[in-house]
């Protein structure tokens, strides 16, 4: 296995162009696990740790430009206001040591349905900035995940950053694991209220071949909130709306039975998380955030 160590982004793009099979590695959260398990032995590892700009982030007018290697710890500590859903998801990633090294670039590169960041990114809405020696482009998150552990990257492209919409309203994130910390997801759910566009977006993890949005649930909820005038009145959402939202979210899941959980449990749990996180975000929107947001 050859270890390529580009000193700059340009060198990294050149190396990837020369060796399209090279596997990029930054924090190693996913890649090291796969190597340890002998799931793959790439011919080349492309170490991105010397590329400083990948660890930079900037808060703009509309979006946060989050470098692919910005560690989860930084997201939790510095970007909680702008990216509350992703900050909550970051809390659930592995251990403090791994959160100090891993960033969303790795999750996106691996595109495993179990990646913790995906539901939060889907709910918040974002575009993935990718680049190659041929040029750069922005891939909308809805078009990014193309199959089981597959994404829309061309073989010479690297992930540079994610342009995530700044939170205009409350966001939440829940993940079920069979341990209370440091656990891979059995399934996960993200939700973001977008009062500026009067829409709600969602993300589901580990309950389908790829990370997905619960689109039917979103459409139902968007319509129900609009028709009921909830965005203006900030009324309590009726239990029947919450229930149907949860059922539709559950129905969006397309899970499998595996060693971590049964398909039936995953469908069930997605529904429970959808109902609860909708309740928490809506209560926050109504101004009762302190009692519902959760602290750690």
């Amino acid at each position: 296995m050859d270890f390529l160590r580009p000193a700059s982004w340009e060198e990294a793009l050149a190396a990837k162009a020369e060796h399209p099979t090279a596997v990029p590695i930054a924090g190693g959260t996913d890649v090291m696990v796969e190597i340890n398990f002998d799931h793959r032995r790439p011919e080349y590892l492309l170490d991105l740790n010397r590329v400083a700009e990948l660890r930079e982030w900037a808060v703009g007018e509309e979006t946060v430009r989050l470098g692919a290697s910005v560690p989860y710890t930084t997201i939790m500590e510095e970007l909680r206001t702008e990216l509350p859903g992703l900050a909550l998801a970051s809390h659930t990633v592995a251990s403090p040591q791994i959160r100090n090294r891993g960033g969303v670039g790795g999750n996106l590169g691996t595109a495993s349905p179990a990646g913790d960041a995906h539901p939060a990114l889907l709910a918040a809405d974002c575009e993935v900035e990718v680049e190659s020696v041929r040029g750069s482009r922005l891939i909308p998150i809805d078009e990014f995940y193309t199959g089981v552990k597959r994404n829309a990257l061309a073989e010479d492209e690297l992930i540079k950053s994610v342009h995530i919409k700044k939170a205009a309203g409350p966001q939440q994130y829940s993940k079920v694991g069979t341990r209370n910390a440091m656990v891979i997801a059995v399934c996960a759910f993200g939700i973001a209220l977008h009062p500026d566009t009067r829409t709600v977006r969602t993300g589901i993890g580990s309950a389908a071949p790829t990370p997905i949005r619960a689109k039917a649930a979103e459409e139902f909820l968007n319509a129900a909130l609009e028709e009921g005038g909830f965005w203006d009145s900030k009324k309590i959402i009726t239990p029947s709306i919450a229930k149907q939202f949860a059922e539709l979210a559950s129905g969006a899941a397309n899970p499998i039975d595996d060693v971590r959980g049964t398909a039936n449990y995953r469908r069930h749990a997605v529904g429970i998380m959808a109902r609860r996180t909708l309740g928490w975000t809506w209560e926050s929107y109504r101004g009762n955030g302190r009692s519902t947001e959760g602290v750690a």
Partner: protein
Amino acid sequence: MAGTKTTTGAPTEVTQKHNKGGIGESTLRPDGTLKVTGEFAYSSDMWHEDMLWGQTLRSTVAHAEIVSIDTVEALKTPGVYAVLTYDDLPAEMKNYGLEIQDTPVLAHGKVRHHGEPVALVAADHPETARRAAAKIVVEYKELPVITDEASATAPDAVLVHEGRTDEYIEHVPHPNIVHNQPIIRGNAEEAAKKADFIVKGEYTFGMQDQAFLGPESGLAVPAEDGGVDLYVATQWLHSDLGQIAPVLGLPEEKVRMTLSGVGGAFGGREDISMQIHACLLALRTGKPVKIVYNRFESFFGHVHRHPAKLYYEHGATKDGKLTHMKCRIVLDGGAYASASPAVVGNASSLSVGPYVIDDVDIEAIALYSNNPPCGAMRGFGAVQACFAYEAQMDKLADKVGMDRVEFRQLNAMSQGTLLPTGQPVDSPAPVAEILRRVKARPMPPERQWESSEGADVRALPGGLSNTTHGEGVVRGVGYAVGIKNVGFSEGFDDYSTAKVRMEVINGEPVATVHTAMAEVGQGGITVHAQIARTELGVQQVTINPADTQVGSAGSTSASRQTYVTGGAVKNSCELVREKVLEIGRRKFGSYHPAWATAELLLEGGKVVTDGGETLADLAELLEGETVEVEAEWRHRPTVAFDKKTGQGNGHVQYSFAAHRAVVEVDTELGLVKVIELATAQDVGKALNPLSVVGQIQGGTTQGLGVAVMEEIIVDPKTAKVRNPSFTDYLIPTILDTPTIPVDVLELADPNAPYGLRGMGEAPTLSSTPAVLAAIRNATGLELNRTPVRPEHLTGT
């Protein structure tokens, strides 16, 4: 030659100059700081100049004939020094095993479980060894897999081991049963007629892994005399030695073993793993060979806790008195026997629990199957039984209409109670008292997750995964109590050996203790120095590395090491003391009549009378003298259980612990947070109270693990392990570990050194059923299986 070159990471002697504590004091571990700062040398850290790396090729299927093995391409790989298969084994003996030599060093003709060693490679780099092993082509012809009792004993069942000649084959009902132990006492059938209530239950216990953090590893260095020096992390050097030497075709004195840094054991190092393989490669290549398993391989490299099916029937009168018990315990021993026969003995003889039941009909068996081999793990057969009988106690108490703790107390054994084997419990058995103590503790506050800033998710089920802020959360409380035997039972010659030396160094009397005891984290290294200080009145004690240059210490298991090797150290110290006093009498006897008349003690570096008068300085007395004693020490003998009735004084001593579990369950998501696991345990005498509490908290946590998360999942269709990693085999993190208030009782056992009671395993017994009882209490579900998974709690 190899021996003259540098080895690093090998163990050295540990001198404890500044620790002052004798027995009963919380002396700190000499290796504690090194371990928490990452400086301690574990067996995997060893290095030798010119060493090679060994790699094991393991079977990819569970049960198959080996049609062919092609090693040509592997041997051609540059950097490869040797590739070995069964055909390369040098001696007539090609098997090993703790009790039955049924385990091939390398598979021969057949593989019997997923991950069985088939071939070995030595190369100059671990990656080269790994790649070469991958080039070995093994052709398998798969056989049907035996995975449970039904498939093991079916009329047309394939035999896992054909042509058995071991001592158990004579009495087992089927060759796919390793051993069975019935215990019949009284007349359960008749006694059942007196019962007003009868409860029957069927319970399932999942396969738990020891999950020690330091994977199997060691270094074998060939020596000039044709022998080998082996540095390895193990639990019992001499047991390994007795299995290694015959397969190498060497006399035992040519295999010199030294214990290297052990990263946890819990029973999983009682069997051979890489020891023989490393020696074979070292002797073949003439070079030092190191083998280190990674975590994936470690799951295949050691035996696990027996999964079990347990069928129980209990009866009680309307006053709450137990009338009878019938049970059948089916343990799955997997492909090789390991410690299965002894686990059967424990499971059967302790199947009643710490209760008085005169009429019992018991049978425990262990299967041969194509599942992973199972053997020793903390609690050793008593754990599975406790899970089942404690569930039964709750059900019976409810039927009778009594408080669950009072019901247990009413039926609790006490000193003098007869075990189902007819053996009297002849030392304190404070079962009712430890239950009283855990019940009397104040409850942890309700809704403890609430803070002024909102719900603290760390205190809720789901933890940082942020699944609930209180929704769906219900509290439950459960109790359990258990009994564990201490030491090796059933007539085993369970001795230990200690060599103790006393001399003067730099004007100060010092003691040196040398045993073959494996320090696996239990704290023997601390306790031996405390005993030497107490018995010999010195401050400075040196503990020599454990090796085979001294007699056997027996296993670091069965809660026995403080009792047995501690007893041996105490005994050797007493013999040294006698010799020291003889020297004193010879040198100074004429100066003071007390030398001849008084009871003399060694205290504070002096010889003193029991009245406190100083007769001599030890430094002066020992000037020019070295006193050294190596002696074996034994506890009271035991006898085998009768093969048909199970009667016999088979056990040495007992250990009792009780737990109260307080849990909070997210009943909608099926997630559990254990809030508190209060425990009370009699330890006879706490030689090191801090270590005792550490052992109790660790054992409690290991019991919690198998209650809510720890399980090796084996595919019933293929007998292949599905989760050999710490990604999917989960053990509790600190966030899963509750507050564990510990109440230590010290009721002396008059038969044991200092009155102590082996105590490392008992907390692992009652912790699991207490947590299960609490979850049942919160959910109202029956939950006859452990570990509990979210789908069991949500009906999905």
